[in-house]
């Protein structure tokens, strides 16, 4: 309590100082102010509202669709599926190593009238070419590939990624049907350390891993229905860590956090989750367990590396310089591998054209010894498009694509099916089950964060300090089950990514059509069977 009082005092002092020296907290924007500021370590522990029956984070929930639409509108998309869209004015090009600079520039000028090669970013073996926003990157990419194959290995537009749920320990027994479904209790018997020596990178929307006070100038915007939301002006936003993911006593659990949405700014090392998805996914992987509080996680002792590559509505409104595009995701994956992650969770994806830049990054990470679990997608009832990133997994031994099953071990209604599906895990479904059919973990109470879903007259500043145990469903939720089990398997002794994939596939419970099939892949993962391995004769 004294600590809480002290932190409250500091927070108030800062707030008063800001009022005194920077003008009003609300009202007219002052464009000479820094548009965004994070004061880490300042703030109070989250208010925990406990278990919620929120059903707004199912793939087909109206709120989820609205959330996506607002995000698309803020980016200037034309309402097309976000997965099919790309960021204008950018082209990703991998020049051949042996190609001299003169040849590279010559090829680029032949394919584009406005292209300039940007300074190469960290964790990238490719270049980003800046184009005029009016120039079509698809055409430029095709020209580069068709005419200059001797200089260019691949070229692609900077396609946007999105999370694979489309926005939606007392509770273990009552709500977490998903963990017993993969026989996790018996797996924990075998490996009680639950991944303590393993670092898991969650390449996602960030993580609520630290208390902070966030100061931002929030401009006006229009939503997907063209309703104008007024500027919030300069506001202070309380932000709290999800204490069931990162306890105050062990902040060292977080390893090498990085924010590629805010890369190039002073906030690049603070991948704060303004969406809630990354925090929820991280919870399934590593929620603190057996502590008499909240829900359980699978590999509850792993170290977590939040790598933010997915932007949220608030990131956009706060002025983030980057978006969740292929190049950003590729850099995130490479960063994770370069910084010691042995398991990488990618509850993200898109459909549309291929993503060679992401494929290269996945191969690079697997080559460095990282196992990767990738969401198979939620588009089964939406034309069942091929999920580009998940499809890559099927061609890389050591990366797996993960479909979802519901509480009855049936194919989840939304889970994309295809020949690239390799495994299935509990992703939950609200349809037919209600909120109890979803996957619960601690994350933000969206009544306090997603204020942009309210009518403009009720729109107000968000708070990221109210947490609850929120039901989500999607292949995004299925994927961290595989990630968590993979982390335990790696600690158990299966250190090679390809062998982990092999173990998970060979020990999966066959569902659906006998043998591998497009809905379940090799079947539902079985943590205990994978961990138990083989005896001499049995």
């Amino acid at each position, binding site marked *: 309590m004294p600590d809480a009082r002290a932190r409250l005092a500091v927070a108030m002092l800062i707030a008063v100082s800001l009022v005194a020296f920077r003008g009003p907290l609300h009202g007219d924007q002052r464009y000479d102010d820094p548009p965004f500021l994070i004061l880490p370590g300042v703030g109070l522990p989250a208010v925990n509202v406990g278990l919620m029956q929120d059903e707004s984070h199912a793939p087909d929930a109206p709120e989820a669709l609205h959330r996506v639409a607002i995000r698309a509108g803020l980016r200037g998309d034309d309402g097309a599926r976000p997965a099919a869209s790309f960021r204008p004015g950018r082209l990703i090009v991998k020049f051949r190593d042996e190609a001299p600079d003169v040849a590279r520039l010559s090829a680029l000028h032949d394919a584009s009238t406005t292209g300039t090669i940007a300074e190469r970013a960290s964790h990238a073996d490719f270049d980003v070419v800046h184009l005029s926003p009016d120039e079509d990157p698809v055409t430029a990419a095709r020209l580069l590939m068709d005419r200059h194959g001797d200089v260019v290995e691949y070229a692609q537009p900077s396609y946007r990624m999105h999370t694979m749920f489309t926005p939606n320990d007392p509770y273990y027994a009552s709500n977490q049907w998903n963990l017993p479904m993969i026989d996790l209790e*018996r797996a924990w*018997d*075998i490996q009680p350390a639950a991944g303590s020596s393993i670092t898991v990178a969650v390449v996602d929307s960030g993580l609520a891993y630290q208390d902070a006070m966030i100061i931002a100038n929030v401009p006006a915007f229009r939503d997907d229905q063209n309703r104008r939301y007024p500027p919030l002006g300069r506001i202070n936003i309380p932000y709290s860590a999800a204490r069931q993911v990162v306890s105050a006593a062990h902040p060292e659990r977080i390893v090498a956090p990085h924010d590629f949405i805010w890369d190039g700014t002073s906030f690049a090392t603070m991948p704060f989750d303004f969406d809630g998805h990354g925090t929820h996914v991280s919870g399934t992987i590593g929620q603190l367990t057996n502590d008499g509080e909240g829900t359980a996680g699978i590999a509850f002792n792993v170290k977590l590396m939040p790598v933010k590559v997915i932007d949220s509505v608030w990131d956009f409104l706060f002025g983030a310089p980057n978006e969740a595009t292929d190049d950003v995701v590729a850099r995130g994956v490479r960063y994770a591998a370069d910084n010691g992650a042995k398991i990488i969770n990618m509850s993200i994806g898109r459909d549309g054209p291929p993503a060679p830049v992401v494929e290269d990054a996945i191969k690079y990470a697997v080559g460095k010894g990282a196992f990767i679990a990738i969401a198979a997608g939620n588009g089964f009832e939406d034309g069942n498009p091929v999920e580009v990133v998940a499809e890559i997994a099927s061609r890389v031994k050591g990366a797996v694509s993960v479909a979802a099953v519901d509480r009855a071990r049936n194919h989840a209604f939304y889970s994309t099916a295809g020949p690239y599906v390799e495994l299935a895990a509990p992703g939950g479904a609200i349809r037919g089950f209600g909120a109890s059919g979803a996957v619960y973990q601690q994350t933000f109470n969206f009544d306090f964060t997603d204020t942009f879903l309210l009518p403009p007259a009720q729109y107000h500043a968000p708070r990221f300090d109210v947490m609850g145990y929120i039901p989500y469903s999607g292949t995004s939720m299925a994927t961290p089950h595989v990630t968590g089990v993979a982390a335990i398997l790696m600690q*158990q*002794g*299966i*250190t*090679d990514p*390809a*062998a982990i994939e*092999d*173990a998970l596939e060979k020990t999966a419970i066959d569902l659906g059509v006998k043998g591998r099939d497009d809905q379940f892949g090799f079947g539902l993962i079985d943590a205990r069977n994978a*961990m*138990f*391995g*083989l*005896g*001499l*004769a*049995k």
Partner: protein
Amino acid sequence: MKRPFVGTLALLMSSAAAPATAQGVFAAAPAAPSISLRPFVEVSNEKFLATRTFDAIFGETSARFWGGGLQVTVLRDRVYGEVGASRLLLKNAELVGQRVFISDGKVYKLGIPLRSTIAPLEISGGYRFHVHPLVVPYIGAGFGSYHYTEQSDFADAPENLDVTHRGGTFQAGVELRAHRWIGVAFDAKYTHVPGILGSSGASQQFAGDTQSSAQAKREKDLGGWAGRLKVVVGR
């Protein structure tokens, strides 16, 4: 272990064979009774046929056994029959290893203890060549019942194994008469024990992975080659 033993055996047989031939092969020892009951104790070192499987689980491909039995010789010591039982010469008569996962031929040890016992009960018979009063080469064959158990930590009852299968055995060796009532025998023994390995576990995986059908058969066989030392009491 096998090579020195076989070498010694060959040396003994060759050194004994020359004078024996001079005396006439098949000449029974003059004092041999028509029927003799001869208890024996034995120790052996067996090199398992399923080398990859044993190496993966236990980190070794051979094990020592001890046992005993009763031998009967008839027709003035020319034909013998024996029954013997043996068990692993290890603490608790168990081989202790760990469960594994095998991927692409590579073995990943999982740290889950696994304990196996092997208890053969064999009946065999054969012919004894009286090449010298003190040196008696012999060959024989027989069959046996092989009791195998496998237990792993964290296993449910159906995941452990307690089975008995039949197998065959062949042996050839030489008995040296060290004393009127004591003989010391060295032999090489081959056992073939199908039906226990190969239907599940690491043995199945190795049997399936190998390109060689001969190696696949070996990985399904609980038998092996053993060098055996027997001390026989009786005439």
